[in-house]
């Protein structure tokens, strides 16, 4: 297997972008990534794109061909990947595999979602399809409801409190203040979270990531070639993915996401690294409880200790293990198909010392973790400076 590196990245602003269409977002992120790499479009050999529910959000399918067309990359093979909120991570993994296998030297990979064209209820319905339609959504289980069931189980087993959950959102908003691409550039307090409107108890509005428009793209290149092209390529040293039951009723435990545990373990084996060596991580905080589960299941903190560690500031920039320096899904925004790619872009910036005021000093090893649904898909990537 060949070594694979990121050589250029591009991100649109995340947020409610009523003046920009799906294809404008694709073009913005894609063109930025190609320009950032210093390559010409004709040097790209294949395209991979992640999007979750473009059919429900904008009535458009066949996104693979649309992306290639919008970026002037015809007649390259262009393939859409879908794994709910992990669509971007799965697209990244398949693009990585295509270069690692030797099939291609340079590929483009992106993610996009345009979520604000429909009502909040319709968006909730589209997202609910990431769970089990017949036994969950049909019975009134929204996405926040599924994570609320996980949150209550964690609270009752380990004594995790609503304040501990809230502290994850507070920390991610504090980081997002320093990210010009973030949807929310304002700090919030624990009281703000606790006093926000109930969504699905114990989760409140500010425990939930927002509805977001956005696109993210990057170029992958075989590493020896990347060293000749790019000033500071970032190597992807591990890529792992695991699956679990779509419905919560099929899970072995309600206080962990087994797909995350397995993908993380495989990623650390592949990277020949341990969780203690990771300098920063972007983890999937679609809800505050999701971040607590992630930092435990990846192995940064012992099971049951994630909430306490977060409240104690250990995951803040400057803490022992900075988590979601970009602002995470909560602060930066969560255009579901783009999220997995945006996480990789934050890793690229951190490892190139380009993260501005949210820079983790001396960062050498980074990790990203992208979840689909309530944990039915998990994707983990590990990155290092070349």
């Amino acid at each position, binding site marked *: 297997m060949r070594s694979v590196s990121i050589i250029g990245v591009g991100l649109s602003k995340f947020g409610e972008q009523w003046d920009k269409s799906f294809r404008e977002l694709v073009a913005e992120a894609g063109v930025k990534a190609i320009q950032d790499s210093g390559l010409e479009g004709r040097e790209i050999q294949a395209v991979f794109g992640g999007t979750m529910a473009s059919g429900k959000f904008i009535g458009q399918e066949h996104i693979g061909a649309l992306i290639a067309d919008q970026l002037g990359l015809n007649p390259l093979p262009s393939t859409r990947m879908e794994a709910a909120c992990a669509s971007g991570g799965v697209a990244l993994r398949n693009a990585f595999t295509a270069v690692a296998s030797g099939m291609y030297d340079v590929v483009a990979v992106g993610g996009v979602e345009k979520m604000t064209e429909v009502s909040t209820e319709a968006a909730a319905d589209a997202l609910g399809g990431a769970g089990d339609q017949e036994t969950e959504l049909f*019975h*009134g*289980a929204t996405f926040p409801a599924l994570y609320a069931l996980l949150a209550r189980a964690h609270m009752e087993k380990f004594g995790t409190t609503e304040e501990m959950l809230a502290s994850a959102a507070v920390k991610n908003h504090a980081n997002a203040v320093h990210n010009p691409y973030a949807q929310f550039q304002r700090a919030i307090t624990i009281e703000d979270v606790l006093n926000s409107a109930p969504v699905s108890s114990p*989760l409140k509005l500010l425990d939930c990531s927002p509805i977001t428009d956005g696109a993210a793209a990057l170029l992958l290149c075989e590493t020896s070639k990347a060293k000749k092209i790019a000033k500071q390529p970032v190597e992807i040293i591990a890529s792992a993915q695991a699956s679990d039951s779509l419905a919560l*009723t*099929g899970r072995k435990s309600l206080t962990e996401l087994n797909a995350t545990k397995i993908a993380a373990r495989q990623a650390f084996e592949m990277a020949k690294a341990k969780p203690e060596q990771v300098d920063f991580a972007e983890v999937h905080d679609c809800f505050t409880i999701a971040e607590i589960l992630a930092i435990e299941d990846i192995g940064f903190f012992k099971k049951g200790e994630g909430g306490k560690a977060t409240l104690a500031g250990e995951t803040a920039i400057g803490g022992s293990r900075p988590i979601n320096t970009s602002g995470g899904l909560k602060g930066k925004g969560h255009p579901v198909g783009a999220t997995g790619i945006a996480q990789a872009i934050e890793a690229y910036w951190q490892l190139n010392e380009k993260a501005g005021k949210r820079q983790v000093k001396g960062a050498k090893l980074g990790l990203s973790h992208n979840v689909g649904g309530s944990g039915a898909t998990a994707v983990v990537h590990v990155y290092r400076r070349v």
Partner: protein
Amino acid sequence: MVDGSLPLIWRNFSERYNLMGSKCKSCGKSFFPTRLICPNCRTKGKLVAEQMPFTGKIVSWTKVFVGPQGFDMETPYFLALIELDNGAMILSQLVDNDDGKVRTGARVEKVFRKLQDNDAEGAIAYGYKFRVTG
């Protein structure tokens, strides 16, 4: 939602009305809804139809304040993950709206109710909900 599908209603009839599921004769585990392959034993498992018990206990619960389309009339409502008395897990709405009664560990039993106000399946959908008994 899948619009106006009468075959879908007909297919789900035994599950939604009678809680029919599967039991694996190889590993002894029960599953709801019906499965064709045992997740533990894979193709070596021997799955047979099993009537689920109508009683169980709450494993986790939430009070939903913002529901999906078709549930606006009912909010807020309780949802619970329930372990049925044969060990199978099921997610269901609770008919009780009494904050004090819904708690982890509470005993519940199945009742028959209208599930949705909208016509997502081309007809009013009926099926299982649960109520707290103690």
